[in-house]
């Protein structure tokens, strides 16, 4: 029951944010931030801190690092993300196994452990997620305007730097919260898959966010059911359902060969 509440709460928070990750083409950016979260887990284990809090510190630090690195143009940004994502994963795995030794259950961190959600985790999801949602609503219009056309929005007076910063901070927060549930490797899937599935059905940005929330919640419910029934791991089961929903949603568009 706790798993269901946690998953659906996260799905609702992840939906509008995931739409912006898709629109702003930041899937790989989010992936990098999420994989770096493993370093936070290792640090949290070593220092016996709340894992979500220590992951949050790391995701914020990595976001700041990426902002700095995006100022150079000698190495393309996507290569940089690929480099950092895997470097962070390597450091995270090594650090975690140094802390815990060979009996470390790496799987739980890589793919999440939705059935091990504590009441503290639930509080993180609902309070942290609520904060993220309110912050996102606050910048919704300007963020949408600059995602459609950044120069146009800037010329019209949107403070693009501040709005983008807000988005990056909210993304770091939600990634940190999601890692406990779906793990560092599936967090971005949980953000972008509902949004991608919602796109072919949507006429407006808000509709897309709403459909994404519905698909996210549905996949949590179905994924948990599959997991319990067939004794499959929770996070991957949810992601599998999401992939099937996406396939069903995109199929008519592919057949039509347009858009």
């Amino acid at each position, binding site marked *: 029951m706790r798993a269901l509440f946690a998953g659906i709460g996260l799905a609702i928070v992840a939906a509008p944010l995931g739409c912006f990750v898709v629109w702003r083409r930041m899937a790989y950016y989010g992936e990098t931030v999420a994989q770096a979260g493993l370093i936070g887990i290792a640090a949290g284990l070593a220092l016996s801190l709340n894992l979500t809090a220590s992951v949050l510190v790391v995701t914020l630090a990595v976001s700041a690092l990426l902002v700095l690195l995006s100022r150079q143009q000698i190495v393309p940004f996507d290569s940089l993300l690929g480099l950092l994502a895997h470097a962070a994963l390597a450091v995270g795995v090594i650090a975690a196994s140094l802390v815990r030794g060979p009996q470390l259950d790496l799987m739980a961190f890589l793919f999440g452990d939705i059935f091990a959600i504590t009441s503290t985790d639930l509080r993180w999801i609902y309070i942290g997620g609520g904060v993220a949602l309110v912050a996102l609503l606050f910048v919704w219009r300007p963020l949408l305007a600059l995602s459609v056309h950044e*120069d146009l929005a800037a*010329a019209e007076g949107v403070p*693009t730097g501040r709005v983008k910063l807000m988005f990056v901070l909210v993304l770091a927060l939600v990634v940190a919260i999601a890692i406990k549930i779906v793990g560092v490797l599936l967090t971005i899937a949980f953000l972008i898959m509902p949004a991608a599935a919602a796109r072919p059905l949507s*006429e407006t*940005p808000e509709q897309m966010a709403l459909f994404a929330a519905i698909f996210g919640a549905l996949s949590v419910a179905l994924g948990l059911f599959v997991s319990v029934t067939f004794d499959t791991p929770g996070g991957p089961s949810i992601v599998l359902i999401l992939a099937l929903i996406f396939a069903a949603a995109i199929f008519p568009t592919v057949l039509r060969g347009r858009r």
Partner: protein
Amino acid sequence: MQGRDAQDRPLRDTDRPLPRPAHDHRGDLDHPHHHHHADAGAGAALPHDSNALISARSLWLSRSGRTILQGIDIDIAANEILTLIGPNGAGKTTLVRVLLGLEASDKGTTRRKPGLVVGYVPQRFEVDRAIPLTVARFVGLGRNAEDEEIARVLGEVGAGQLGDRQLSELSGGELQRVVLARALVRSPSVLVLDEPVRGVDYVGEAELYTLIGRLRSEHGFGVLLVSHDLHVVMAQSDRVVCLNRHVCCSGVPQSVAQHPEYARLFGPQAARAFGLYHHSHDHRHDLAGEPRPPRATDRPSGAPSDGQ
């Protein structure tokens, strides 16, 4: 990141008495070698025109070793259509971006009138299909306007029936009008259009400029129009600035077209094309289909008469 106004050079001219009206130096053409004494260091920089919507002085800008803007002075006044022409690579778009605050100049100052509302039609508008967006919603991103208001501006640009369409389904010409509608919904005090006719056919081009001229008469905003040729723009322009990294010449359209610097930049063909233009001028009105009594937009003679 959004550029800030370059304020790195102290505005030394404010304490200097004005020897002549601020517009004088461009209303006529007695400065064919304007750029020679437009240098920031020459001490000849003019004060900002306090009546101008946007006023820039001694703008210098270099990118990867190339000096793109060389001591540009420019003012955009209310209720005037100022056309910026110049060959490819002349720095037209860069200048517009500096004036809008999208890019910072290395040297020089840009002043925008307090409370200035900018309507902007960028050079290239690529629709991002990842974002589902109706035309009406897109226009509404310019300002949180009522539905009726959005429908009204769409009607004004001749796109009244497009409101419910997806932005990604529009043709180039339709998209151009919709972006213009978004600029208009803001009730702008200055409208900035960077080569607004890309991907629009010739008739569409003439129509668009006529529309812009009419909107200016109705709303009284200032217009900064960027174009790579003088051809169709002429009839609608009050003032033309010919740019080739520096201001080559400026003035009313006719005088610019006859200016030696202009002929040098665009070749004698351009001058002849301008002659041709005079012939086609008569049936442009037929094309537009709306014979209008003498329009302010056709103001053919003299320097911009800013009665300020």
